């Protein structure tokens, strides 16, 4: 961990604080009468707002999660050097790609 990674970690954390609260609210709202695709997609399809909300969320979560997992891999998994950086970028990349795909999936009209 160094100042660069730290700044990315903390800034994405700050961005996600309100997003997580929003997401928890959505979770509570959406699970009120059982989850259904119609209900979810009815809300998200064609919505620029939700696209932005979850797009930013996906980016921030990918960065934040990747750096967090990196720390755990270094401290508990004894991963070092290039392998550590590779792990971080691969995991972050995976989250970002899958996440963007999910956003596109629910937002595309």
């Amino acid at each position, binding site marked *: 961990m160094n100042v660069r990674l730290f700044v990315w970690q903390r800034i994405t954390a700050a961005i996600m604080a309100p997003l997580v609260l929003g997401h928890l609210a959505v979770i509570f709202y959406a699970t009120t009468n059982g989850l259904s695709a119609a209900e*979810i*997609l009815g809300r998200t399809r064609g919505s620029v707002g939700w696209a932005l909300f979850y797009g930013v969320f996906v980016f921030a979560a990918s960065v934040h999660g990747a750096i967090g997992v990196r720390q755990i891999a270094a401290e508990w998994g004894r991963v070092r050097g290039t392998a550590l950086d590779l792990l971080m970028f691969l995991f972050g990349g995976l989250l970002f790609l899958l996440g963007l795909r*999910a956003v596109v999936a629910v937002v595309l009209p």
Partner: protein
Amino acid sequence: MSGARFRIESRRDSAYRRDTLWRAAMVHRISGLALALFLPFHFLALGLAIEGEARLDGFLKWTEQPIFKLAETGLVFLLAVHLLGGLRLMAIENLPWRPGQKTLATAAAGVALAVAALFLLRLI
């Protein structure tokens, strides 16, 4: 001296691991790890919508089983506790020091449990 191996001979070597704040740090780490590992599956599930509404609906029907609802409750707890613990850390790092961290950490866990309990109760 190798410098790399500092033996823990006895469980007593780390009695401080029973301390509230150490446990709070572990809850924060484990919840973060669990959420990070959960996310790819979450994204894959939502991505089913690419194949059409019916495909996503099929999956969602599957998640109506009680075991899934319990898992969802767990996830809500993990999300809430990680957020609240993280806010406590950000306060330590960016605001003037305040004592009573043990109380704050315990309160964070308590609120997260309450939120998860509320989630579960609404489903029953």
